[in-house]
């Protein structure tokens, strides 16, 4: 029972960390039906940027965080301008592939700027653990939960209620019609990429605190792929729920079975669930009206 409690608590916190890393995927998907393979590298930049601000520039924490978010926004805008904008109107697969290219470029850039050596920064979240019954979990990890929920609420509101949120979903459906409404695709894409970069920066900062500043942060981007698929590619709530489910699955398999099965069991469960709900838990179905 103790084990179960401990695993559940860890699984939940890991799941929320995944969710934090995953919302960026969802935002990009919502605006363009594209899976962003560079999301992991945006996370990586989040991690390195906070390192850069705090350690290299020696800024106080609050300023450092602001600067990180600011640079993240700038990066999002730049990526949109240079890489995505020329592809407006091209098939989805081109946009997806371009993010694979982008990922490689960003990785190289991070490497050129900060080198391959893992780094650390003084932890900016209070150290220590929180006990829940017999289970313990690091405070830094728990923080992912309120952060994740806050993003869920904010982005949920943005997509349902605001003009630009609706415009974003409109673009994903039909770029030409969106243009004819006077929606500026570049502007909306820019907003989407800025949001994605900011959520990635937040996730990256958390991860930097948890796993250290190293290239391995980018690998988390890929682990999150099943999370968004499970939740439904275009659902923020799905990302959170998917994150929690995958987090729990991983930790239960790791804790009760082992053998590295925790890497693949989520995939089995995922595919079985998808056979029942082909668009994930909350994803939008393809509408085939003829």
């Amino acid at each position, binding site marked *: 029972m103790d084990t179960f409690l401990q695993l559940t608590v860890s699984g939940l916190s890991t799941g929320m960390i995944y969710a934090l890393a995953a919302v960026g995927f969802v935002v990009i998907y919502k605006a363009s039906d594209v899976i962003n393979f560079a999301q992991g590298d945006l996370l990586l930049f989040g991690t390195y940027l906070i390192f850069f601000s705090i350690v290299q520039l020696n800024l106080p924490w609050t300023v450092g965080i602001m600067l990180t978010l600011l640079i993240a926004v700038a990066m999002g805008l730049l990526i949109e301008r240079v890489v995505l904008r020329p592809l407006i109107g091209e098939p989805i*697969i081109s946009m997806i*592939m371009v993010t*694979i*290219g982008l990922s490689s470029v960003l990785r190289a850039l991070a490497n050129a700027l900060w080198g391959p050596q893992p780094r650390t920064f003084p932890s900016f979240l209070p150290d220590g653990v929180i006990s829940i019954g017999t289970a313990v979990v690091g405070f830094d990890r728990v923080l992912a939960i309120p952060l994740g929920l806050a993003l869920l609420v904010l982005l949920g509101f943005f997509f349902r209620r605001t003009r630009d949120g609706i415009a974003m979903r409109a673009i994903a459906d039909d770029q030409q019609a969106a243009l004819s409404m006077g929606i500026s695709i570049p502007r909306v894409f820019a907003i989407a990429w800025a949001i994605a970069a900011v959520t990635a920066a937040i996730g990256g900062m958390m991860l930097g605190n948890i796993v250290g500043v190293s290239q391995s942060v980018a690998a988390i981007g890929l682990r999150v792929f099943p999370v968004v*698929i499970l939740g439904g590619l275009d659902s923020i709530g799905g990302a959170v729920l998917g994150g929690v489910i995958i987090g729990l699955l991983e930790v239960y398999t790791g804790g009760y079975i082992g053998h590295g099965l925790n890497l693949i069991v989520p995939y089995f469960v995922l*595919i079985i669930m*998808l056979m029942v709900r082909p668009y994930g838990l909350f994803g939008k179905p393809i509408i085939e009206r003829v």
Partner: protein
Amino acid sequence: MTMECGVFHTTYTSDIALRRVPAERLRLGLFVIVVIAFPFLASPYWLNLANQIAIATVGAIGLNILVGYTGQISLGQGAFMAVGAYTAGLLTLNFGLPWGPSIVFACLVTSAIGTFFGMPSLRLKGLYLAIATLAAQEIIEWVITHWTGVTGGTEALVVPAPQLFGVRMNTDFRFYWLVVILASATALFTANLFRSRIGRAFLAVRDQDVAASVIGVNVFRYKLLAFATSSFFVGLAGALIAYYRNIVSWERFTLETSLFYLAMIIVGGLGSIRGSFFGAALITLLPALITNAGRMLQDSAPAIASQLPNIQQASFGLIIILFLVFEPKGLSKLWQNVKDYFYVWPFAYRRGEGRH
């Protein structure tokens, strides 16, 4: 006086031929001559690259069948190649099967496993189906590294070089002939496939699966068939790697491999056989070229040379981005443009109706 102002076909046979005009046949002839002459002129280093390109071409054509022609993104290329490589390797190693039959087996096994992972296409579409291929990548990798009794686990397999007519194919020069013949056969097979019933049905499923189903195409069956056909050739590429490298290690077949192959077909051109070859060549040659450029700079511009690793990595990404931004149809389209330019040369107008 009358003058023919174009190429007309008066029989269906000539109309459906793969090379429809004399210029095309001439080019093919030239290409064949170059391919035959190449190994006699090239150094082992270039032969090595050529062999890699030929094998990559087979794999890229395989992937293109799934991605380019049937519209299904696959992230499982690496794993499917691993299945081919391990099957071939294990058959030779454990059962002493000669390379010929064991390559065939390897292709069939890969094909079966590819089909298995294509099963979710019964329900899943688009990116949701892509997860099935990612799952394939992860699951197959896990099985290979954990099924120690059969695959040797994380240790590499040592596969003897194949024998052809009593000659051991253990040099680049000898192997060249084998891979070039198989790569050509793959290309020809695929070209044929896509000018006939099955291939058209693949394309139909990609473009509009509802319409495909109402004209009588069993969409699920053809999706599976696409997985099967694609993985067959991917398995072939894997098996060839096993025999060429003589060592099969799972580290060669990771997700990164899958992304490399995706890059090949994007840069080369989706849904194009010629593009698969171009892409395989470019993505294989790119690091080699940059290496050489970098080594020339090593003394003159050490600052640049020291950033070479990052330049390597960035250039892989950049080339994808540049192609997508400036020529989304890839090298095969560039080639087409060049041809169009010369088609009616010296007159500067182009054919009205393009073939795709």
